[in-house]
């Protein structure tokens, strides 16, 4: 059995799958960022995000953003591709910045923008330079103490990793719902964007749940806890 390669790769500019955004796709590489331990990268993400919240003032925010951009240069992950996949997130940051400008003035807006950009771009860089396998192992190790409160580390790490991977889906479904709303002349009605986007996100979560159930993954060992007698005749097991 030798399946033929008949993918779309032969033609000009490759089509980008909707979920192949920077948070969804691992970009193989040999840079120091790629080779850094997954744990170190997650800690860096945690530190940058925390510093962004804790440190006040424009200079510190700009320094954080500069450090993240430096990391991009070292990793040789093109920022343009990343920014493209994050359009909706960037738009969201823009809206927040305008709001902050109105409430706090320009300095507040710049600080907020730099802090959020640093966090989002670094999250994108971590997932782009870390195999999901390594990410899962690292998260599972970090989640090990949670055993004492009755949570299975493997389940927790799977949930977090899938959440990271879900960000592009979230972004894409919002963008597509906005386009669909525009196509129907409802571009100004937030409900026409938010409701379909939410429906699709729930649909996506449900699908991932079924995909894992199909392989017997993502469930703790042992018997299923007894369910409350439900009033709904179809008890969906997924």
């Amino acid at each position, binding site marked *: *059995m*030798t*399946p*033929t*390669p*008949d*993918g*779309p*790769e032969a033609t000009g500019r*490759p*089509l980008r*799958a909707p*979920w*192949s955004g920077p948070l*969804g*796709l*691992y970009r*193989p590489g040999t840079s120091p960022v790629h080779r850094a331990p997954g744990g170190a990268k997650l800690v860096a993400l945690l530190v940058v995000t925390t510093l962004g919240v804790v440190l006040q003032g424009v200079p510190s925010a700009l320094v954080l953003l500069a450090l993240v951009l430096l990391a991009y240069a070292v990793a040789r992950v093109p920022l343009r591709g990343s920014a493209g996949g994050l359009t909706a997130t960037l738009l969201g940051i823009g809206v927040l910045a305008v709001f902050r400008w109105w409430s706090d003035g320009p300095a507040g807006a710049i600080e907020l923008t730099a802090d959020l950009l640093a966090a989002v771009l670094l999250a994108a860089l971590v997932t782009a330079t870390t*195999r*999901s*396998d*390594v990410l*899962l*192992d690292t998260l599972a190790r970090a989640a090990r103490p949670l055993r004492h409160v009755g949570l299975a580390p*493997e389940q927790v790490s799977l949930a977090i990793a*899938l959440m990271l*991977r879900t960000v592009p889906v979230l972004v894409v479904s919002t963008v597509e719902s906005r386009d669909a709303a525009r196509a129907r002349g409802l571009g100004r009605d937030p409900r026409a964007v938010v409701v379909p986007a939410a429906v699709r996100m729930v649909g996506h979560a449900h*699908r*991932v749940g*079924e*995909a*894992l*159930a*199909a*392989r*017997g*993954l993502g*469930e*703790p*060992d*042992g*018997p*299923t806890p*007894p*369910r409350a007698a439900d009033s*709904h*005749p*179809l*008890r*969906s*097991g*997924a």
Partner: protein
Amino acid sequence: MIALDAVHVTAWSPDPAGGADRVVTLLHPLSLRLDEPRVAVIGANGSGKSTLARLLNGLVLPSSGRVTVDGLDTARDGAAVRRLVGFVFTDPDAQIVMPTPVEDVALSLRRTHPDARERAQAARAVLARFGLAARADQPVHSLSGGQRQLLALAAVLATEPRVLVLDEPTTLLDLAWRAVVDDLVAGLEQQVVEVTHDLDAAGHADRVLVVDEGRVVHDGAPDEAVRHYRTLMAARASRVRDGSPS
């Protein structure tokens, strides 16, 4: 062994006239024992095939009655049943979770291969068995539909289930890929329950169930079952042509 005891599946369905939701039956009370190595399920669209298939690993739970696999109840021991029974969907995109094939198969191997290096090696070995070695590190979306369905199969089989349930695994594939997937499934040592529209494939099963309007209306050897199904569908087509669809 798979056993269904007086299984009844119902669902709430909105009233088209805008009244209160009504309870509709998706599968009428049904008792079955499936122990043949190859079982095929055929039937019209919307007849209840997927509902029946999904019962077998607890993706759907019976409203009343019991489904057990090797004595494990799908409602009580759902996680254990799902470890025994792998499920393949029609659309491989519903199945693949990770961005590259090697990562997706490695995800399946986490339970059996705690060591990351061994796991990656094992994942590549699995992909090689399915003719996907050269694709291991490519983005999943660059694979063709057939390659993706192979990957979905590989990822499920990597968990070493004892039973494999497939819900129309070849419906979206062209003839060449259909043959590839059929051959692969035919060679499995697992018990296989396959929902299919491909009557040739059903002809190779040990036992064929014909589902219609939420009931198993025929259960037996493939030739007779396929004949039964053809007669049923011909009758329905002539009723549709006469303007009185059921």
